[in-house]
């Protein structure tokens, strides 16, 4: 707090008692030595040059330009393909508890290696996870459109320390006649491996740590 008063007052015409001097000096030093605050500083005078870099935020990006071939032989989630190309991922190590904003953008192409007959269809799913916990996911995206893309965004609070953010995909053939009444796809309607082949194109994962 900025407001400190002289704790002792000297009187005109008198010899100054050392205790008066000591008390006043110690009061000021006590404020200066670690107790200055926003009240000591005028409004709007601090700018980024007075603040350490990454004091409030930190941005990390993972860019993948190599094509990722999604295996159609499994209906499990995949984050690395047979050529060791990853969908995308970032490791962070926030110094304090913080919120983490994640954004993912990517395109994919279906190469029409096989087709399904109605009511069956081939679909690709995207997911972003932090330490295994799902932050956001796309839901099923049909292979009816040869080229398409996905944008995912999510936020999660994490504790200080290392964390891993991973993007993963899976493909499957789904029986769309099992659509639940709310219009969404029933994931239990997955009937087996995808009959088509999907290749992921350019992908960007953006991660923003917000400490304050």
């Amino acid at each position: 707090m900025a407001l400190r008063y002289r704790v002792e007052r000297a009187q005109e015409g008198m010899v100054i008692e050392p205790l008066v001097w000591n008390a006043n000096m110690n009061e000021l030093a006590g404020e200066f030595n670690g107790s200055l605050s926003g009240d000591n500083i005028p409004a709007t005078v601090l700018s980024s040059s007075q603040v350490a870099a990454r004091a409030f935020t930190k941005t990390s990006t993972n860019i993948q330009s190599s094509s990722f071939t999604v295996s159609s032989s499994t209906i499990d989630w995949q984050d690395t393909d047979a050529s060791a190309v990853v969908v995308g991922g970032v490791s962070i190590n926030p110094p304090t508890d913080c919120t983490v904003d994640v954004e993912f953008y990517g395109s994919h192409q279906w190469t029409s290696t096989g087709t399904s007959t109605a009511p069956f269809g081939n679909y690709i799913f995207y997911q972003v996870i932090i330490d295994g916990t799902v932050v956001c996911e796309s839901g099923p995206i049909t292979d009816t459109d040869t080229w398409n893309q996905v944008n995912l965004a999510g936020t999660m609070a994490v504790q200080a320390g290392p964390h891993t953010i991973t993007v993963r995909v899976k493909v499957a053939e789904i029986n769309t006649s099992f659509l639940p009444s709310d219009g969404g796809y029933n994931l239990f309607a997955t009937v087996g491996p995808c009959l088509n082949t999907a290749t992921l194109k350019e992908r960007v994962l953006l991660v923003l740590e917000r400490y304050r």
Partner: protein
Amino acid sequence: MSTVTIHEEVPGVATSAASFNSTLTSWNNGTAAGAIDQDNVLEEGLSRKNFANNTVEVNRVGAGFFYESPTPGGAFLPSAAYGAGVNAVAMNGGVDPVIIGPITVNTGDDLTIRCVAVVTSTTTVAGGTHTKMALQWSHDGATGWSTVTHSRGYLSVDNVAMRLQYSVAMPHTAGAGTFYYRLVVEDSPDGNVTIRNCVLFANTLAV
């Protein structure tokens, strides 16, 4: 931390010049220009009001626009800048490209660009042939445009409103610099593309 040390005077004893001056010298040194650091400030002692506007984060939004290929089913304006065989055009018919900038960044800033556009493609090929769009950047907004190669999207959806988004973080380490960004159609070999309600969004994080 800049620490001030008080040399206490003793009652009944005449102070020496050295004693008196040591206290004043300590104040002098402690309050010298640049001497005060974060340890002099109370933990959580600062608040939002102490900081100038845009200290931490600066946002900038570009303009919306509409563009349609001038020749139905035909080619876009050719641009030698992107190589033979690739048709590319700046937004707004290439006459008045809608760009975002100048975006000034300083050493250590993180610059994030997002582009959201509603895209309607009309191809002459059943099922559609992919339209390729990309984000480009330049230092002066007029010359030297180059594609941010990883920020590229593909669509093959006919007559359907789509959404594009590009995100890229650019840790900047070479002092103050200026950037301009724009969205271009890199390739659409079989048809028109109509872009509606495009928004370019730039976000600079300083600290």
